[in-house]
């Protein structure tokens, strides 16, 4: 049966068909749906780990125990998981193991567009790059065979267009492989320097055999057509190249891109007149091929920034452009993402935006939108967890150099579990005074509502222990901890002011569920979510001061003749605008 699947769904299906029994991940666009889909297969134990390093280590442990395992993450997540990754290449596997990296060329939803193909070369892993969903599934299954045959972990490299495009996939049955025998093997699995030296030599030997495999595997495929143009390509770039050239060029389509099939590349290069490398982002293939002494054209005509597409290839290689409809594009207004109407982060950022002489170090999540107009209540956003630790660095730099500026690190609940805890330990241990605000919206918001250690549920839907943020902060040694309702502006302001005047570590936990969350019954009752009445503007009282527009709520608009207007289909009755209006023109409907 053929089914239209995203690349992420296809990876999940591949893991199921390959007999995987353990899967772990931390959510991150564009990888999140891999584990969400694996969780639908009851044969596989699946979990959200608190971060990517833990997720990979879980997969490594399961592999050494003898099970086929998988870990999935976005490209920057691999940076977090890089420590175990490099040593795991040395120890090798028992049950096959695949790490999925989902790169984001064009940064649809990421802070950078790093090219993770270099991880395969640097950590010495086998790399497979599918170009559609069928290959995504097939390469997962092939990956487990290679992993077990050569005793090496696999890096399956996807990009956003592979992850989120749907293409047809032939479904097959699951193959139960069970668990391999686990034999204690200190020389293989205990990476002491003495063992590591031996393991490194063995790894280099494996890579030589894998290069031979790469030369012979059918997933490194030559398609001869007209030989005046030869194109070496991989991943989604192959589809773009085919779209532009069809049968008018010859292709070497690489499915296995580390180790590279050098002999096959040489033979292909010998048989075509003009050789191009078409690849997205960095000149990974191009550099390797040039190092072999082969003359090839790549990044001098195809950019190494942004997402690739057929238009770019057509213009770069053929000098052709399709005719388009020209219009006055200056009229088009931008439509940036924004905090939802009723978002619990809005109240907090509104209060912070009013404070003078503060620095706000931000983090990765919906709340990064606090940096957008009209709030603009953020100074930095670097990576997961940096709000707390970079905030500490900020405040120490100010302190040492005699500047009196308060620093607030703003971090989500899931992000705090991910890598904010260590930063907070640093603040307390080293006598810092940066304040940490944990935005506890009871879910992982930005990636589309995944459970996390604080929500009380697992990925597989089981009820579990709720890790208590207050107790964690107490245990770390924070003496000033406040839990507040961020939609209550007075309460929020009081807590912020108190923090500004406290020369010790402070934690403020803003606790209110994400407005998009389908809250369980207990939560609806606890927060009175079903009792809330929406807001409206009494136009005769509206003085058109536009102060309510400063909260940046998408439900509030303004017309010169009537004043502020609240969209009754969007408003949920969070009351932030009502508290901001100095003329009491905003009221609750039905009160």
């Amino acid at each position, binding site marked *: 049966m*053929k089914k*239209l699947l995203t690349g992420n769904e296809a990876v999940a299906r591949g893991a199921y068909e390959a007999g995987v029994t353990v899967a772990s991940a931390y959510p991150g*666009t*564009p990888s999140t749906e891999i584990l969400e889909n694996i969780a639908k297969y009851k044969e596989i134990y699946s979990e959200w780990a608190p971060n990517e390093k833990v997720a990979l280590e879980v997969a490594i442990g399961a592999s050494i125990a003898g099970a086929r395992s998988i870990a999935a993450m976005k490209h920057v997540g691999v940076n977090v998981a890089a420590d175990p990754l490099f040593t795991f290449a040395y120890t090798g596997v028992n049950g096959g193991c695949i790490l999925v990296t989902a790169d984001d060329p064009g940064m*649809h*939803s990421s802070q950078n567009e790093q090219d993770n193909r270099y991880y395969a070369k640097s950590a010495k892993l086998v790399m497979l790059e599918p170009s*559609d969903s069928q290959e995504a599934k097939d390469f997962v299954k092939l990956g487990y065979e290679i992993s077990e045959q050569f005793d090496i972990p696999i890096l399956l490299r996807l990009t956003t*267009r592979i992850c*989120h*495009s*749907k*293409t*047809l996939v032939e479904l097959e049955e699951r193959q139960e492989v069970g668990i391999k025998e686990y034999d204690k093997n200190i020389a293989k699995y205990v990476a002491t320097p003495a063992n590591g030296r031996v393991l490194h030599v063995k790894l280099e030997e494996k890579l030589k055999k894998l290069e031979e495999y790469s030369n012979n595997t059918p997933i490194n495929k030559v398609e001869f057509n007209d030989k005046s143009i030869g194109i070496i390509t991989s991943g*989604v770039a192959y*589809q*773009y190249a*085919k*779209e532009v050239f069809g049968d008018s060029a010859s292709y070497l389509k690489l499915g296995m891109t580390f180790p590279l099939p050098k002999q096959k590349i040489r033979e292909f290069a010998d048989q075509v007149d003009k050789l191009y490398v078409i690849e997205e982002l960095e000149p990974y293939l191009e550099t390797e091929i040039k190092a072999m002494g082969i003359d090839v054209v790549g990044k001098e005509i195809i950019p190494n920034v942004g997402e690739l*597409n*057929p*238009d770019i290839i*057509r213009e770069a290689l053929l000098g052709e*452009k*399709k*005719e*388009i*409809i*020209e*219009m*006055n*594009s200056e*009229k*088009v*207004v*931008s*439509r*940036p*993402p*924004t*905090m*939802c109407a009723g978002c619990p982060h809005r109240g907090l950022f509104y209060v912070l935006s009013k404070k003078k002489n503060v620095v706000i170090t931000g983090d990765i999540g*919906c709340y990064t*939108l606090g940096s*957008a*107009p*009209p709030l603009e209540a953020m100074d930095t956003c670097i990576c997961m967890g940096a709000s707390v630790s970079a905030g500490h660095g900020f405040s120490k730099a100010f302190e040492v150099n005699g500047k009196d500026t308060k620093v607030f690190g703003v971090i989500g609940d899931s992000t705090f579990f991910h890598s904010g805890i260590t930063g907070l330990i640093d603040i307390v241990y080293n006598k810092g005074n940066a304040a940490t605000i944990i935005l506890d919206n009871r879910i992982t918001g*930005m990636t*589309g509502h995944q459970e996390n250690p604080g929500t009380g549920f697992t990925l597989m839907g089981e009820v579990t222990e709720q890790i208590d943020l207050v107790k964690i902060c107490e245990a770390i040694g924070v003496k000033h901890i406040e839990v507040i309702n961020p939609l209550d502006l007075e309460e929020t302001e009081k807590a912020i002011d108190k923090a500004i005047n406290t020369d010790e570590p402070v934690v403020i936990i803003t606790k209110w569920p994400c407005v*998009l969350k389908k809250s369980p019954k207990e939560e609806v009752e606890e927060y009175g979510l079903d009792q809330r009445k929406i807001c409206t503007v009494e136009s005769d009282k509206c003085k058109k001061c*536009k102060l309510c*527009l*400063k909260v*940046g*709520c*998408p439900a*509030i*608009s*303004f017309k010169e003749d009537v004043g502020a207007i609240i969209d009754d289909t969007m408003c949920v009755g969070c009351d932030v605008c009502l508290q901001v209006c100095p003329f009491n023109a905003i009221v609750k409907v039905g009160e």
Partner: protein
Amino acid sequence: MLETKNILLVGVGGQGIILASKVLSKGLVDAGFDVKMSEVHGMAQRGGSVTTQVRYGEKVYSPIIGKGQADILVAFEKMEAMRWIEYLKPSGKLVVNNYSIPSVPVLIGQVKYPEDIIEELKEKVDTTVIDAANAARELGNIRTQNIIMLGALVKALNITEVNWEEAIKDTVKEKYVDINLKAFDRGMELV
């Protein structure tokens, strides 16, 4: 050999574009076409611009549509039509919902929502204007705008090989099947 057809659906998060494109691609797959569909995720629920690209034919390579190559552009919101117009073939068709959703820069008074969009589009391209919001209200559910737009798309592109009733039944929740079937027919009538 059937040339690959390119359909571009654009609008704003929350307008039901993803569901409409699911019905569309399901119908096309069941009719035996090779289909590729690409969505941009991530920011969709936060009021951002949303696009879905559907390509079908005998053999499809790229999952994305280049500039000047869409056979039809279906805009669920009129400013989005303008934003994506350069992806439409000059000989292609535009189906636009006469509906505006101001973005935050408009709401906070930084910029004005552009006027006369529909008139300008009509001057440049074969344009069909649909009042999907009104039609949906008449049907009794404002959220059926997406399937009304789908019906209009199918009629405008004259896709005759597909059993749309089955595709809708297979995709939407059972209790919404009837109203969506009506919405689909209504959309067909509006072109």
